[in-house]
């Protein structure tokens, strides 16, 4: 258990970060904190992927000086997945932020409970 734990330290960090982000996204009432949680959660997955794709002593999969031997480079697919994932999480973050802006303009609050209360008050009027 001990040596394995040390060997997989990046993955363990990634899973802990995933948990932190996940709970923040799920439980926080504040929209901005929710979005921060979302980003921590997604980034944790990228750390996980990047750590798994890294091979000790090899270099990034970009052909340099005409060296085409596959033994020199790390696996490029996890890096590709991370890039795709970043694009996805950026667009989702942008969408969440724009929703936050719309809600803030209407109700002048970032707190979801507060927004709900103000909304109900407005409907009763």
């Amino acid at each position, binding site marked *: 258990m001990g040596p394995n734990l040390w060997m997989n330290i990046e993955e363990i960090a990634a899973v802990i970060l995933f948990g932190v982000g996940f709970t923040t996204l799920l439980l926080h009432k504040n929209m901005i904190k929710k979005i921060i949680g979302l980003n921590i959660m997604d980034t944790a997955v990228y750390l996980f992927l990047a750590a798994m794709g890294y091979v000790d002593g090899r270099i990034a999969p970009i052909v340099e000086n005409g060296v085409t031997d596959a033994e020199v480079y790390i696996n490029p697919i996890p890096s590709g997945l991370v890039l795709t994932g970043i694009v996805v999480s950026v667009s989702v973050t942008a969408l969440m932020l724009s929703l936050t802006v719309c809600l803030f303009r209407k109700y002048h609050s970032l707190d979801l409970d507060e927004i709900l209360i103000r*909304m109900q008050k407005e409907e009763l009027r």
Partner: protein
Amino acid sequence: MNFVQNFPCFSIVLCMAAGIISTPMKGKTAKYMTLTVVSLVAVMSIATLSYVAATGESFVYVMGRYPAPWGNEIRAGVLEALLATVFALVMLFSLLGGMEHLFRVVDPGKINLYFILVDLLLSSLLAIIYTNDLFTGYVFVEINTIAACGLIMIRGSGRSLLAATRYMVMSLIGSGLFLISLAMLYDITGHLLMENVHTAIVHLVDTREYLVPLLVIISLSTVGLAIKSGLYPFHSWMPDAYGYAPASSSAILSGLVSKSYIVLLIKIFYRVIGFDIIVRSKIVNVLFVFGLIGMIMGSVSAIMAKDIYKMIAYSSIAQIGYVYMGIGLATREGMTAAVFHILTHAVTKSLLFVSAKGLTDASGNQKAYPALQGAAFRNPLAGAAFLVGSLSMVGIPMLAGFISKLLFATAALGADPKKTLVTLIVLAVSTVLNAVYFLHTVIRIYTPVNIPENVKGIHIHVKAGAAAALVALILLNFVLGLLSQPITDLIHAGIDMFA
């Protein structure tokens, strides 16, 4: 290679291109283009369906230049083509049915955005159905979520913004879990294409390596997709999202979007992990239990709902429960019933949402029950459509819902004896509850009443497009109900092609 084999790829690309081209267009032009594209997709899916049904085997379409272990692939079998056909048809009719309302409630400057979202949504639905690559599946799941969120918030009212926020939060939690499960799956197998992953997993199970990570992967991906599709304890976003969105959005969301995640889950069960490994992992039992609870709780909430949209939305929760209950039976018959119910629910829920819109329009835009009294006389076609949809959901013979319930009951008899009795009891109770809230609404709209003051001057005339959509959806209900044998045969063939 036969020309028809290009159609799945064509339909995905066509939808995407239409979405991009619609950006500078006016609302009306974008509308006609979207309707054309959706109809074209329906025609192409029917062609694909008849091709794969005739050849009797699925085909793989290589995207790009790189072959199997590296490149990206599309795979079309009978089940994929059947789902694509029904999804495209339902989308077409939901759009047509809610079109007039859409132009009324959405800001005229924004209406073309709605059609962009619909195009993107259809393309991601098709990609989720057809893809053979897990990561592509994930990317399109996210596109699906973003487009669906846009469909909810398009009205821009406070309620719909809040509903969209809640929807996004739950969906993002689901996709986060799904993404990390994919990352782990890639780590233990080294592949992303479904066949290769499956071969690697069979090898791992044979040599008894990485069994704990495999169990974690199965649970994470199942829970992630279950959250996204709104299985019972994760349903809190549904009533608001469906209740405050325009009618076509609600129809598309409840009929198609939440179903696409279930389709992806079924694909993962059969084609990635392998169904016997899934059954041995016992995760299906978890789905079974939550499905049963959802069937009861959804119906109970629907009985207590104060307005007609909330009632239909809560009923969706119950119907999602049915689908997961069918998957949880862990037999081929149970899965067939679940897939059939996906089709039934897509066809019936869109009919209900669109006709409910017609009824509330005839009652001065009020959706609470007292205002709806006698609405079926003010808008006879919507009333008839709502009646057919309700009867189908309750499970009256000749309609689609009856066949679903019959298939579920037969599947329960062939399943694990411990599950048989509880399935049959819950099915019976849930049917009674369905009857309570649907027939209560039907009786309400067919109770004659003096025309109330607020609707006196309003003259209801149903547009030709909306009328055609309602009639077509009613017909689809009857088709699924009367031609159930060929359709279940197709689903059987499709599931066999998966394995």
